[in-house]
């Protein structure tokens, strides 16, 4: 079906009436970030983004488009996997211990404006938190109760490579509602595809018409255009194996010269899931167990027996990249990377994961052998 932009306000109000907390992309501090939505006016109208290695800028045009940009610095990970998540509280009373689990009392979330790569990232996190040996029931419940309205991409950034990862610019499943923004002779409108019974309920009262063949072709044109615009690519064929057998490749030392080990990439990555589990006591004597986001770039992330297993930037960068593109397959039977390009844009020194991967792929086998570090002279 097809609906006009204004009808998005009706959709947002419906979702709010159904009890959801509605969030979507909004402009704040020069970036597109998750924020509360009360109507279509909150969405980034006429906003476009320009991204490159270590570069992110918004430009404001006077067009009517709402989603003519790629991705902001953070996806929707923090809504389902909070950066600080209290697990339980306990207190000692007369030698006994009272322990109370902390409940998730947030209203269910409705996201309007997730990207296909972000939905793919949530599916990756589901592998970790739901489909493993132990299910994170708080995460599972939040995911189950969340309404996801995804908007396909028309304007990928220079950092995007979802096409290579098979995660975009289109999406065919894993959503309640999928929208594609069209802006041509047929007017500014959204092609909508329903993915669940919940979506039908949310669309009650929303004025829409049936999609014509013209609308469907327009969607294809938008998606094809998006694919053509993508300048970055990652050759995933056999990549996991290449990285696994090149742990001593000289490229790791080279990238370590540039890497600051700041962890920005792990902060903006929609699939990074490492956390610290810590117990602390507050002034009232309550013990609080909290789960907080952690990064494999921290020196203490691999702390063992008095030292870090990965004390060098080189070994930590290698850990991050080989996990994302190689060992994630061994651990979760899926890739860890969805091609959103955030790690490229938000790296202060502009390290490009696609460039690093292809550098190693091109010189597969360049390792140091016993005597290759020896220089012969006679």
């Amino acid at each position: 079906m097809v609906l006009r932009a204004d009808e998005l306000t009706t959709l947002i109000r419906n979702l709010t009436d159904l009890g959801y907390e509605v969030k979507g992309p909004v402009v704040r501090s020069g970036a597109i970030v998750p924020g509360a939505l009360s109507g279509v006016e909150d969405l980034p109208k006429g906003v476009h983004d320009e991204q490159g290695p270590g570069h992110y800028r918004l430009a404001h045009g006077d067009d009517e488009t709402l989603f003519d940009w790629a991705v902001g610095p953070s996806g929707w990970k923090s809504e389902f996997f909070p950066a600080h998540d209290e697990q339980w509280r306990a207190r000692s009373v007369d030698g006994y211990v009272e322990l109370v689990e902390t409940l998730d009392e947030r209203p269910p979330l409705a996201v309007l404006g997730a990207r296909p790569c972000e939905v793919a990232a949530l599916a990756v996190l589901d592998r970790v938190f739901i489909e493993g040996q132990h299910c994170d029931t708080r995460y599972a419940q939040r995911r189950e109760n969340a309404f996801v309205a995804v908007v396909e991409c028309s304007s990928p950034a220079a950092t995007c490579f979802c096409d290579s990862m098979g995660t975009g610019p289109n999406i065919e499943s894993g959503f309640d509602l999928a929208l594609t923004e069209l802006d041509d002779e047929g007017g500014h409108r959204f092609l909508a595809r329903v993915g669940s019974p919940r979506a039908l309920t949310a669309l009650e009262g929303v004025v829409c018409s049936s999609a014509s063949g013209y609308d469907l072709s327009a969607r294809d044109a938008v998606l094809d255009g998006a694919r053509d615009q993508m300048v970055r690519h990652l050759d995933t064929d056999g990549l996991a194996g290449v990285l696994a057998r090149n742990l001593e490749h000289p490229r790791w030392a080279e990238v370590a010269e540039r890497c600051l080990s700041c962890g920005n990439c792990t902060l903006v990555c929609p699939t990074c899931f490492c956390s610290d589990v810590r117990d602390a006591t507050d002034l009232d004597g309550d013990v609080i167990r909290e789960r907080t986001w952690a990064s494999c770039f921290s020196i203490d992330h691999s702390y063992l027996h008095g030292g870090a297993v990965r004390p060098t930037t080189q070994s930590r960068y290698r850990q991050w990249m080989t996990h994302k593109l190689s060992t994630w397959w061994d651990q979760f039977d899926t890739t860890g990377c969805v091609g959103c390009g955030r790690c490229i844009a938000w790296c202060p020194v502009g390290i490009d994961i696609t460039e690093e991967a292809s550098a190693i792929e091109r010189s597969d086998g360049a390792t140091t052998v016993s005597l290759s570090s020896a220089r012969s002279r006679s």
Partner: protein
Amino acid sequence: MASAIELDAPRSGLTPVLYRVVARRNETADVVTLWLESLDGSRLSFQSGQFNMLSAIGVGEVAVSISTSPSDPGPLLHTVRDVGAVTHALCSSGVGDVIGVRGPFGTDWGVTGNAAAIDTVIVAGGIGLAPLRGAVEELVAARSDGAGQVFVLVGAREPDQLVFLDDMAKWKKAGAVVLSTVDRSAPGWSGRVGLVTTLLSSAGFDAHHCRVLICGPEIMMRFTARALIELGVDPASIWVSLERNMQCGLGWCGHCQLGPLLLCRDGPVVGYVEANVLMNERER
């Protein structure tokens, strides 16, 4: 009542079951064994080689192997070395103190209900005997059912660093071959002095028909495995216990990664062939 857990949803993986310390014993100057019983009467179902996450309430949590035999009806046995804030709190706990337990987690030694007709050789370095104790108990008990011979070979730095001396004497009496050695002697010690690998060639096991379980510092495990292979042991019959930073035990926090493995799920017990590759990858 003793403890209250208010739940609207199933118990979260990060919420411990509360246990009480019912007995404790100082093994060495910095190693303590704790006997734990649950407050709610529940019993843990586990296999030898697995571990629990023990919480010193208010301080933190650490991974500690379960040292009891799975068929032991008594309290859970955990042996802890005092090396940091949490282990210090656990080692300082007294009878009656409440400790949190989450588990069991990880892979096991493969001996529970799997008494093989071949010899089983246990090689332990220092406190490495603690993760193996349950397996030895099971194997010694199974001995009478026509299973293979059990060999327990233990190495420690000095005589006062040997643990579970009573158990070692008990196993010897039950028919197991029990040998120990120290790296450095001390006054009063009349036993063997030398690396634990020196116990291998004369222990008397059939190198070509045995399985070996090794636990101790990584270097000790690598060298022991190498020595075993030189004696003719099939590398595929050797298992080791690997360690990494462990925080959740559930496969959620990412800390315990060792290459393709999540040690809380794919370890700590790992086959030597796979483990050797990983142990030799520097800073992995």
